[in-house]
């Protein structure tokens, strides 16, 4: 990647498999918003403005039940907290860029882009043209995502309600959860989240998700901290 042009192209090339992988998820988010009775233009605006599938689905689920604004925003923040982690790990690559460019690149950040940049560059090594590489991957990702959501939104109007397409939302989350369960502590965290979600499902103002997530993250963090202490003592 000697020139910027080559970096753009390499980014697009590396992003290709994940861009194809966006097709079903984007279609589902589009159809699910229509299935929830969301205004099609609002749904498309959400896809462009928020640009984060899992949190879009979570927000739609709450908005259809007229949950208070603060609860929807808190839920979106919780679902998107992983971006804080990505942001911390990508920050060294973008140091030299202007503030405006930093915001623009931040807006386009996705799970896949984060993984791609981390696979090809190291903060200490040479990362010339890393922003060009990033944009090369970000542009097709953005175009594919929003095109698929748009198609889903308008295709969704053709699907009868009896098909229960809203069930696709928890199914997508199911497909996403297992790769996140890497250790025993993660499994315990997930189990705690299920139990907590069951008992908080009836909470007013749709507070259940945030409460359950907070309880489970606390349990996971505490177990992890204790394990590290034990390791330190054993040494």
């Amino acid at each position, binding site marked *: 990647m000697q020139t910027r042009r080559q970096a753009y192209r390499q980014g697009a090339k590396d992003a290709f498999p994940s861009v194809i992988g966006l097709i079903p998820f984007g279609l589902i988010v589009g159809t699910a918003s229509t299935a*929830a009775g969301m205004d099609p233009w*609002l749904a498309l605006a959400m896809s462009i403005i928020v640009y984060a599938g899992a949190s879009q689905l979570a927000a739609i689920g709450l908005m259809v039940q007229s949950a208070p604004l603060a609860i929807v925003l808190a839920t979106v923040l919780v679902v998107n907290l992983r971006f804080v982690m990505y942001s911390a790990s990508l920050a060294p690559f973008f140091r030299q860029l202007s*503030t405006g460019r930093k915001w623009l690149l931040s807006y386009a950040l996705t799970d896949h882009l984060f993984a791609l940049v981390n696979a090809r560059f190291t903060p200490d090594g040479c990362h010339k043209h890393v922003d060009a590489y990033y944009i090369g991957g970000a542009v097709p990702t953005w175009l594919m995502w929003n095109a698929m959501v748009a198609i889903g939104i308008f295709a969704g109007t053709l699907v009868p309600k009896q098909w229960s397409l809203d069930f696709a939302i928890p199914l997508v989350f199911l497909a996403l959860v297992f790769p996140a369960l890497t250790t025993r502590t993660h499994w315990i965290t997930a189990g705690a989240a299920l139990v907590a979600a069951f008992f908080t499902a009836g909470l007013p103002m749709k507070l259940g998700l945030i409460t359950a997530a907070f309880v489970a993250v606390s349990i996971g963090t505490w177990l992890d901290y204790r394990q590290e202490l034990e390791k330190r003592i054993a040494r």
Partner: protein
Amino acid sequence: MSIAADWYGVVTVVGAGLVTVAARASFIVLPARTAVPAWLRRALKFVAAAVLPALILPDVLFRDLGPQEIVNIYRIAAALCAAWVAWRTRNIFATLGVGMAVLWLLKLIGPL
């Protein structure tokens, strides 16, 4: 039930966008010396494992209930099949396909 493009819809969507871009930009736009606190780094490791199950459970158990139902038996059965497929294959297509197929089959032939 619907979500109109009224003030609630528009403000919520714009707010969700601001919250999301803030999360994404956080450490990229903060001054270089800002480090992630140790407790936050530890907690962030468990966010996905906590949030996703908490999102899944109410959508499976308590949606689309019949007049006599406390939990949605068909959805639970379909979700268990889909969970097994997701665990074995890690494939989003297969998970969706099996989950929807089991739900449709149960709705078609089930007694409820």
